[in-house]
């Protein structure tokens, strides 16, 4: 016995999420059929459509945004002499919560990991180099995760910049080895920013 085609399609679609296997996808799909009314389904469809239409990556910094450029790149009051380099847009939200930093960001959207087929050209390093040419940046703060991949990425960027006059620093203080920025609390992040070291 098979499900009607539409349900099979939904199951397959839901499996695109990480950690969602066949069984979970099947449960969600059947829940949609049996428990959600038309109104609820419209709400979901509408939310997905808005993601598709309104959300994109900031062409300057790579942040997730619905304005061009994003609210940070647009903000004239921000200090344009420093850039914090991070792996994911969610790290930016953690950094902003500290209220200690008023400079710019650059989102790489990943970290170098040959085992996952991700090389330096697969993350947004090129965009960073372009910005460093055009803008008045004096310091680049590397705030990739303290995992092996995050360290590799930080080292890679720091070597690319070693002949430039830009100061390159790395956060460290207080964040445990192997730690994700995303899970660090605001105080730890503030201290890590204050205690950054020159690379």
């Amino acid at each position, binding site marked *: 016995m098979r499900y009607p085609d539409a349900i099979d399609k939904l199951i397959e679609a839901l499996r695109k999420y990480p950690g969602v296997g066949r069984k979970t996808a099947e449960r969600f799909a059947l829940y949609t059929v049996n428990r959600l009314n038309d109104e609820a389904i419209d709400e979901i469809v509408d939310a997905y459509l808005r993601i598709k239409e309104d959300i994109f990556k900031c062409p300057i910094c790579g942040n997730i945004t619905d304005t061009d450029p994003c609210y940070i790149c647009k903000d004239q009051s921000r200090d344009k002499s420093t850039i914090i380099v991070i792996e994911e847009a969610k790290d930016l939200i953690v950094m902003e919560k500290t209220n200690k930093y008023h400079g710019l960001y650059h989102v790489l959207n990943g970290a170098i990991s040959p*085992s996952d087929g991700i090389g330096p050209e697969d993350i947004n390093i090129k965009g960073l180099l372009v910005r460093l040419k055009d803008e008045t940046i004096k310091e680049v703060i590397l705030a990739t995760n303290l995992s*092996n991949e995050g360290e*590799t990425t930080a080292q*890679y960027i720091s070597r690319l910049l070693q002949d430039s006059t830009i100061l390159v620093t790395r956060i460290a203080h207080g964040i445990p080895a192997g730690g994700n920025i995303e899970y660090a609390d605001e105080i730890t992040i503030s201290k890590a920013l204050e205690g950054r070291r020159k690379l």
Partner: protein
Amino acid sequence: MYIKSLKLTNFRNYDKLSTNFSRKTNIIIGKNAQGKTSVLESLHILGLTKSHKLNKDRDVIKIGTEYAKINSLINLNDKDIELDIIISKIGKKAKYNQIELEKLSEYIGILNVVIFSPEDLDLIKGNPQIRRKFLDLEIGQISKQYLYSLLNYKKVLKQRNDLLKAMQMNKEKDMMLLDILTDQLIGYLEEVVRQRRQFISRIAKYTNKIYKYLSNSQSNLVVKYVPSIKSNYKKEFVNKYKYDIITGTTNLGAHRDDIEFFIDDYFIKTHASQGEMRSSVLSVKLALIDFIFEYKKDYPILLLDDVLSELDEERQNNLLDYIQNKTQNFITSTEINEINLKKISNYKIFTIKKGHIEESGDIEFKI
């Protein structure tokens, strides 16, 4: 430290096994393939989360069941603690007083275990991989820092090998990325090699003394650490960049280390008799007991799997004298009369038949 009681569920050929142990010596008697080695295997897993045999974790799950469980009550510094290991087809969990530990590395080292089994002759006869497993298992028992560095070494090594594989096939070669991963690898390599060197020099001291004692001999048993790179790590790696790219793999490092054993100046692997090999491995294993004591101020559990009968009377007696009043012992044998009970002061005897364990008549002898 000692094990007070053990419960096995769906472990190898046991549906259920439940027993209390003597805090001194436990002698387990049974014919071959009745399951006496499985009891020792379960105790090894209880301490180190891994079997002493080269098999997959899930091989210990009784056929037709979903998971194997090892429950135990142990005594550590006069406190009773429950340790449990649960092995399912998808992985294993370790519990300390019924609380699941997030990482196995937090668990390893609570209960220290040393085993001597017939397969251990491979420590000398076998390939270098077996000797590296020995290093990792034994140093891991006393150093979390070692487990951490080793785990990261393996992770970075995989990244580096995957990069080399890609470089082997592509025309474009990112030498800068290779160099960065090499620096990162060396960072962990230094710590792994430092601890391996220190470990070998510590146990070599004991090993030689014990060898002389066991075999009443004047000869020296020498254990040598043979690292893949001796010094100038970065230079050696750089010299091999081209070769690494051609072969698509990392040709130097902790994953190529080895240990060598000598009696005086002859190489045991190629020049010693079976008996000398056995005495040599036994000396290394007994050295581990003293080594662990040096760190933990407490002796590990000692598992002797079917090896007493392989030793001549003099060596067996010397061995039993040596461990007297140190370790809690678990000794298996096919026949009780193969063991010189006069040399053991306080013991329990268990008989194993077709996956059942029974404590024999007199519970504790005192001589």
